[in-house]
């Protein structure tokens, strides 16, 4: 019950956004201590202090990492673009920004994914990432991970929905203007 998706989101989207995470990941989160103790009854604004305390990007499930739990929480709450955009535009917490980026990549339509994630390619800060249970923690940069979110279908063990390449999206969706080129004026 406590794991149900927000009714408003269910009706406005037509599908359950929580299904975007694989069942095995989802169910391990539902059983985890962090989910049941700290994530119960939180609103999107209550997610912020929890996200501010994140210290790595990892989706390992034994036990489920706070990052994975909070990602599922976002899917459960299903914020609309203006609310989640605050996670991406703030500059103080890099892991909260990436948490928002994963949500955007999972839940929003392709033109919005490009529009919201591309500006984050300018973020060069270092982050700690763990690819999976068999991998070690590694230091990469925010822009590298964002780049992978835009081009790959499996990032840190999370399967992402298909994202058409940018030129296809530009041609088929009118909402997406071409990406501004830094070298244009030269």
């Amino acid at each position, binding site marked *: *019950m*406590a794991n*149900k998706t*927000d*009714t*408003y989101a269910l*009706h406005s989207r037509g599908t359950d956004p929580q299904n975007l995470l694989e069942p095995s990941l989802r169910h391990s989160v539902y059983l985890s*201590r962090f989910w*049941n*103790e700290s994530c*119960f*009854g*939180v*609103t*999107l*604004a*209550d997610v*912020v*202090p929890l996200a*501010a305390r994140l210290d790595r990007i990892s989706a390992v499930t034994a036990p489920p990492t706070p990052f994975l739990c909070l990602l599922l929480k976002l899917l459960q*709450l299903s*914020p609309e673009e*203006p*609310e989640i*955009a*605050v*996670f991406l535009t*703030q500059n*103080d*917490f890099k892991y*909260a920004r990436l948490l928002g980026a994963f949500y955007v990549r999972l839940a929003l339509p392709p033109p919005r994914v490009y529009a919201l994630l591309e500006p984050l390619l300018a973020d060069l800060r270092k982050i700690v990432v763990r690819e999976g249970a068999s991998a070690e923690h590694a230091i990469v940069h925010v822009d590298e991970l964002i780049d992978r979110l835009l081009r790959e279908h499996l990032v840190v063990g999370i399967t992402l929905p298909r994202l058409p390449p940018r030129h296809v999206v530009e041609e088929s969706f009118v909402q997406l203007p071409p990406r501004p080129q830094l070298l244009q004026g030269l």
Partner: protein
Amino acid sequence: MASGSGDVSRRSWDVQAYERRAVERKRAESEAEQEKLRARKASRQQPHIDDDPFAPTRAWLRKRDHKIDFEGKVGSSEIVGSIQGGGFNCKTCSVTLKDSNRYLAHVNSKSHQKALGMSMRVKRSTPEEVRLAFQRAVKEKEESKQRKNKPMVTLEDRIAKTKENRKLQRAAERNMN
């Protein structure tokens, strides 16, 4: 516990079991108190926002502000006996759960929230609320950093400070007279 033929042997009391019960009773009482407070806060929240057709008739769900006290009982599964009375008790619903996981599942359940007068739906935050939450998080981070950098207060410092305060107090009293 001593077990002989019931008639002959002296009755001995299992002190530990009773102490456990006392500790658990105290925990359950303070927990019930905290939950009542949470329910009261929830009832004060604005019950409806106009553009949400699915707003609940009961109060919006609120997160727990307190940590559940599982101290020393983590993962333990005590057998609920009629005399022993182990496990976790929820005073709000007057039920006893066998272990911490089941207790957690109970306090997160719909029936428990309903007993407190809350629905199972949380309010949707506005972008402004999220922005404010980030500002608070930044402030908190800075404060915790400052706390770390602050030099340790020694006992001598505290004694000196107390003496100073007393002196000032006495001087003030003298002036009053």
